[in-house]
């Protein structure tokens, strides 16, 4: 009898461990009950990324608060904007370059993610000195380092897309993918 119990318990423990392993590369989607907005979180190989849908009115409010001209506020709000949090969860140096990140539309066509440097260059040309809020275009993260900022995708708001991101850990390039992402609705 005790042997049978131990066998069952061992099975449970094995299932626990398998569940933990499967979670390592899993994307978790959470819905904000109040706003209905979605958050995708993916943790894998020393790097975690969280992408939070931001509705256009929120984006408008952020840039209007920083005294952006109205037409520029509208232009930014026309993008599919996500709050993004990236984190070095390893015990080594890690680096990333947004210029290497891509999104893939429903037809399988891949596009580069617009970088902060590209945005700042556009803002500079129209006389906007502001240089913050966007996810930095690259980073060399030590242990415990993390960063947050906006990530912008130029796609029809109603279209689904896949998001592909990369990072380098201990000299080795890694790639992650979040499928079937969507923009925040135009209005809540």
């Amino acid at each position, binding site marked *: 009898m005790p042997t049978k119990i131990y066998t069952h318990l061992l099975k449970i423990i094995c299932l626990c461990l398998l569940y933990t392993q499967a979670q390592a590369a899993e994307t978790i989607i959470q819905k904000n009950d109040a706003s209905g907005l979605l958050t995708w979180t993916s943790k894998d190989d020393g790097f975690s990324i969280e992408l939070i849908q931001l509705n256009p009115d929120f984006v408008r409010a952020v840039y209007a608060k920083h005294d952006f001209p109205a037409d520029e506020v509208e232009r930014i709000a026309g993008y599919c904007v996500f709050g993004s949090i990236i984190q070095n969860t390893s015990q080594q140096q890690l680096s990333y370059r947004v210029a290497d990140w891509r999104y893939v539309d429903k037809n399988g066509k891949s596009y580069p993610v617009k970088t902060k440097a590209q945005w700042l260059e556009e803002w500079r040309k129209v006389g906007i000195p502001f240089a*913050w809020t966007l996810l930095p275009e690259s980073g060399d993260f030590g242990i415990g380092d*993390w960063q947050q900022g906006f990530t912008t995708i130029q796609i029809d708001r109603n279209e689904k897309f896949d998001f592909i991101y990369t990072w380098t850990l201990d000299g080795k390039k890694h790639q992650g993918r979040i499928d079937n992402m969507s923009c925040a609705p135009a209005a809540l």
Partner: protein
Amino acid sequence: MPFKFIAIILGCLLMFSAQAAERQQPKLGYQLTALPEPATAPGFSLEDIDGKKFSLKDYRGKVVLLNFWATWCPPCRREMPSMERLHQKFKNRDFVVLALNQMEDGDQVFTFVGDLGVDLTFPILFDKDSSVSRAYGVMGLPTTYLIDKKGNVRFRAIGGREFDHPEVEKQILQLMQE
């Protein structure tokens, strides 16, 4: 023997609880990254909310915790109380906290400090055009540097931290003793 199994099951349950907790906001860590080679800290002279000038060179001989922040930045808000506690603990020693606000004005900072619920008694300086942050190569906020008594940048932290963590305090004390 059954106790071992119960312990393992409890371990599994704790593991799941920890994973659930990790899905919340990122925890503020305490690790600072040592720069491979100390680099001379770029000098600056900036004003506080009252127009009083502060220059980095005035703090030669002290360890400086130099924090780049803004009121709209959530982790900046989260780490501020720990910076104040650190300041209170070491303010009578060779240590100073300087918080460089990015591209905001006195009204915005005044409102922020009022809402924070913690009196910030270390100098808050205005880097109005972010020229100092550019000189330090700051990519995002918050970013914090530890500068030694000779004016060299020794440690860096990207993202929020609990600055009064014993490990951070240990690094500051080591720099103070050099």
